[in-house]
């Protein structure tokens, strides 16, 4: 059952933050950092709306999606851009919910972190636009509109890095912009080709429009789109913009870039490729899975190794994000309901866990004015809440039970192993190689445990250093949002059904239709 969104819930959740960004801009110069409270209230409104949808999806298993459609531009020649369609279903709602929760809490966190910065009106205005861009990208199902939102999340974040960042911020913001823009152009090429060939921009109509189109053409389109999305996800070797951008962005923005934004690439891969191009997935399943899983395995391993070599805590977290995106891609590559649900849960887990960790790094920067792990140490007793949150964050990344990350990894690997064993007939064919790759991917998760625990040890254990001698716990206005996110990760870890059940309903139908 799909219900029409008569009360503009979806539309409001996107447009309210965008519209109020003007207010933030106007009031910002007077309210200074307190604008953060305003923007958090605005984003809380979006969160409540999306949370309401997620709750309904969870409580009413028969409810498939909530949709809204608004007529848009007239036809351009023979090609219509279609209508501006929004859809909240088992796949998009959990992602949008995490984004809005993160945006709300990090806005509060910004109040303290950004308090001595300049031009906070502009900061929070861009922040709200950025949030609106991310939520919009996830909820919209028209490819043309999708591209617009995709750009809407790029441009404000570019400005946020370039103006309020640290280090070589302008250069790095430029690098970030160029990379993601190149990716976006590849995506655009795919979208335009889809529009002309399938004669529609509606993701849910693309598969019909593609009937009868040569497979090679479809594959080319999928590859172009995936390339664009992989830049966003920072899949190896398209990742080099990420460590720079995430390290030098102002920490609240790092805490959105990494947990919320890059995973959208993975979400879009599921939404666009699986929904729009079932023929490609079906026809090339073993190769499709094999190539993507190898890419995923390389990314997760490489990110893990790079994280081990870092001294800059934010850079370490950035490489850890690359590694986590490898896990997400691994789930996407599994072509199984279990693996795809795992990928969605990984987004949730990474969103919560990595946000916690970036926010912790912000607390450390706020207290000690350094990002170098070498200069930290012995903080466990002085900053107990920060220490607990960090441990929960890293445990979540390494797939520790009681935390949502466990389910994400369990499902991803089970899904991958299941499809591999199903097609298993003899050694040395794609499926049996995938058994091996899946095993290697599980082995690679030792790296996550290693860099996580090692970081905890270097920052929180041992003797205090000169800098940390007189440390105190960070301000509560920063700690409380962190603790809320950590608690969410725990609650979902004990009962993942809250996010997973609607996702599995949707994804099993999606894969069922592919056959």
């Amino acid at each position, binding site marked *: 059952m799909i219900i029409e969104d008569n009360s503009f819930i979806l539309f409001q959740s996107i447009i309210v933050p965008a519209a109020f960004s003007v207010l933030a801009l106007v009031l910002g110069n007077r309210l200074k950092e307190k604008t953060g409270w305003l923007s958090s209230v605005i984003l809380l409104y979006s969160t409540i709306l999306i949370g309401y949808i997620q709750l309904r999806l969870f409580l009413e*298993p028969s409810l498939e999606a909530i949709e809204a459609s608004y007529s848009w531009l007239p036809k351009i020649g023979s090609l219509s851009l279609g209508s501006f369609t929004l859809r909240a279903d088992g796949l998009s709602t959990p992602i949008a919910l995490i984004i809005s929760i993160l945006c709300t809490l990090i806005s509060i966190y910004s109040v303290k972190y950004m308090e001595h910065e300049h031009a906070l009106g502009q900061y929070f205005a861009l922040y709200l636009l950025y949030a609106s861009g991310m939520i919009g990208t996830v909820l919209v199902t028209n490819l043309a509109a999708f591209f617009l939102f995709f750009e809407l999340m790029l441009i404000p974040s570019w400005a946020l890095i370039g103006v309020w960042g640290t280090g070589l911020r302008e250069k790095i913001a430029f690098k970030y912009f*160029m990379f993601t823009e190149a990716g976006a152009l590849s995506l655009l090429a795919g979208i335009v080709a889809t529009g002309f060939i399938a004669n529609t921009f509606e993701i849910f109509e693309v598969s019909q429009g593609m009937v009868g189109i040569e497979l090679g053409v479809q594959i080319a389109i999928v590859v172009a789109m995936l390339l664009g999305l992989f830049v966003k996800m920072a899949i190896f*070797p398209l*990742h*080099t913009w990420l460590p720079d951008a995430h390290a030098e962005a102002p920490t609240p923005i790092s805490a959105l870039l990494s947990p919320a934004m890059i995973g959208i690439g993975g979400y879009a891969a599921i939404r666009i490729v699986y929904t729009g191009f079932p023929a490609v997935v079906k026809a090339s399943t073993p190769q499709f899975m094999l190539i993507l899983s190898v890419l995923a395995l390389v990314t997760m391993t*490489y990110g893990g*190794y*790079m994280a*081990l*070599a*870092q001294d800059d805590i934010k850079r370490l977290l950035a490489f850890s994000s690359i590694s986590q995106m490898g896990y997400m891609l691994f789930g996407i590559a599994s072509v*199984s*309901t*279990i693996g795809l*649900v795992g990928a969605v849960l990984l987004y949730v887990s990474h969103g919560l866990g990595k946000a916690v960790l970036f926010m912790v790094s912000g607390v450390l920067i706020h207290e000690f004015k350094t990002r170098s792990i070498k200069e930290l140490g*012995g903080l*466990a*007793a002085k900053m107990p809440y920060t220490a607990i949150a960090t441990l929960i964050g890293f*445990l979540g990344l*390494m797939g*520790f*039970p*009681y935390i949502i990350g*466990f389910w994400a990894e*369990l*499902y991803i*690997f*089970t899904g991958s*192993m*299941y499809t*591999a*064993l199903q097609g*298993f007939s003899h050694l040395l064919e794609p499926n049996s190689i995938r*058994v091996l790759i*899946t*095993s290697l991917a*599980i*082995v690679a998760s*030792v790296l996550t*445990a*290693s860099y996580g*625990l*090692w970081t905890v*040890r270097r920052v*929180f*254990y*041992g*003797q205090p250093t000169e800098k940390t001698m007189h440390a105190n716990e960070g301000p509560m206005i920063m700690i409380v949002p962190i603790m809320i996110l950590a608690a969410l990760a725990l609650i979902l870890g004990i*009962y*993942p*059904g809250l996010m*997973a*059940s609607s996702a*599995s*309903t949707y*994804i*099993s*139908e999606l*894969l*069922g239709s592919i056959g």
Partner: protein
Amino acid sequence: MAIVPTVGIETIPAWLSWLFPMIGAFLTPLLAKINPRLRDYGAVLFSFLAASMTIMLIPLLFSVEELPKWEVLPWIELEGFPVLSKIEFGVLVDPLSIIMANVVAVISFLIMVYSLGYMKGESGLTRYWFFMNFFIGNMLLLVMSENLVQTLFGWEGVGLCSYALIGFWYRDAKEDYLKTWVGEPPEAYPPSHCGMKAFITTRIGDISLLIGIVIIVAFTGTLSYMELIEKVEHLPHEFMWILVPAAILLFGGPIGKSAQLPLMEWLPDAMAGPATVSALIHAATMVKAGVYLVGRLFPIMYVASKFYPEMGSFFYVVAWIGVITAFVAGTQAITSNEIKKVLAYSTVSQLGYMMLALGVAGTTFEFFIGYTAGVFHLMSHAIFKAALFLTAGAVIHAVESRFLHHMGGIRKEMPITFWSMTLTAFSLMGVPILFSGFWSKDLILESTLLAGQPIMFALAAITAAITAFYSVRMLSLTFLGKKSKHIHELEHEGHHVHEAPKVMWIPYSILAVATVLFGIGAITLLPLGGFGGWLEHTFESYLSRLLGMEHSSTLLAAELATEGALPQELAVIITIGTSLTVLAIGAFIAYKLYIRRSPDPAKLVGSKGVLKSLWNFLFRRWYVNAFFYKVFVYPTISFSNWALKHIEIGGIDKFNYVLANAVRGFSNRFRRTHTGLLNYNVIGMIAGIILLLILVYMVLV
């Protein structure tokens, strides 16, 4: 036979047993806000509640024909999943879980009481009590759990607690070298290092376990232990072979958790934690989780081996790893200079015995003998090793050092501790008749003979001699002989060595008495063959019913009669004879060296020569620890640094900049043509028009 979940009042204690300590753990920070004493006693109270719950399960052991009690609640149901669509949350009450739960809960409670004295005055006690209770809760959850996912929760939960408690003194202060560090240079490690080492090493085992679980669930579609027993019978025969690697991968988890070779190196270093933690987690309970899991999976693998004989190789892997670990770790205990580290090596060695027993059990038809031996030894080891660690803790407290050469000659000052340690060490050595360790170890030796494994028997017997040797060595270095210089210094400073407080000695003397009581109860001449005989009978009737082997037993007996096995009576006699001989040899040599001091061991080893190199080899743990650091730890870090420099920065990122610079370079050159002079522009325009005209001409013609 089909076994279905039941609902009944009898399982309520099984639920509460792990819920109470979990609740206790999360109440700890709140109670601490009210009053520190309330927090301490509250924590102990919750562990007491857990123990009383598990004791309430004991009567079920006497109506074994009604077991298992198996109760499940829905947990996660996901639509559209081909496998793993339904994960339930439940308890499984059977003889194995009842026995294990009681071992865990009762010993935990005694150790919690002891903690009141031992940890007095430490800072960070809220953290301590939280993790202790969280540990007990997770351990009981693991024991009671009904499926592998639920087991993983407990499994990783106890791992986290172990990590946190090993690193309890995370400040790594150099001043506390004598008390909180572990090892001697070049292998001396601070507590936070050891905690991390423990977590990551066991994690490597867990990864193998996880791969095994993923294969099993993808292959059979279920993770419930009871369902798996039935499922394995109906698997397609041509794919049965997948079960063999899957089972061995599953065993990787127990290898890590129970510190078997090659993942044993974390356990000796885990001694950096407080003695209570060593006693509870690294002797009595958590390290037994691996053995427990093998026992849990045993019926499944055993059934599979009936249908697919190659499954037997799984049991051989278990047995061989067990017996080799027992021997290797035993030899390492000979040279260690730290009281707790001797006990840690000994724990590894004894865990190897348990694995050996379970392994050989799977290769015979009379599987219940080996199975009983493993479980019985698990029980008796939990009791005596917990007591040994607690007494060691009392001594360390008294002499303020972990080194054996800082002890000596304190028998008179600490009589209760001395006698408790002596009784429990006798049980460890396997001194006959009165001590439970004797009976359980004998049963293990006997089961190897019954399985027709003379080499395993020989290795296990040599290990028994070594055990006797290092036990006597440890006892005499700790309590007998002359007082060390260190103690004299302490006395000079006004610290006199004295008996531990009541709150500490009562728990370990209870355990010392318990090991004797179990020993007396296990005398085979008693009705039913004593405790061991009763246990064997219980497991035999329970497991053969579970595996559906009651009726066909005679037929199968003829078919499966193990090659090279001895008749049972003969095996018993050989075992008793051998174990008495090796005990005498090991103890006698140690007596000569460490009590009579003729010859003096230090002079005997000397400073070079064969004995010295052997000593070094054992002291450096067969160089296994150094090997792991050299081959895995350091190369991983240096590889990542190298890759950062040469692949990330020097390779990929450089390529980006080369690309960017090339574009900029090109545009810089090209820019020079844009001079802004009218003449040039007109020439360019004309050239363009001509080019265009040529193009048009070509297209048209």
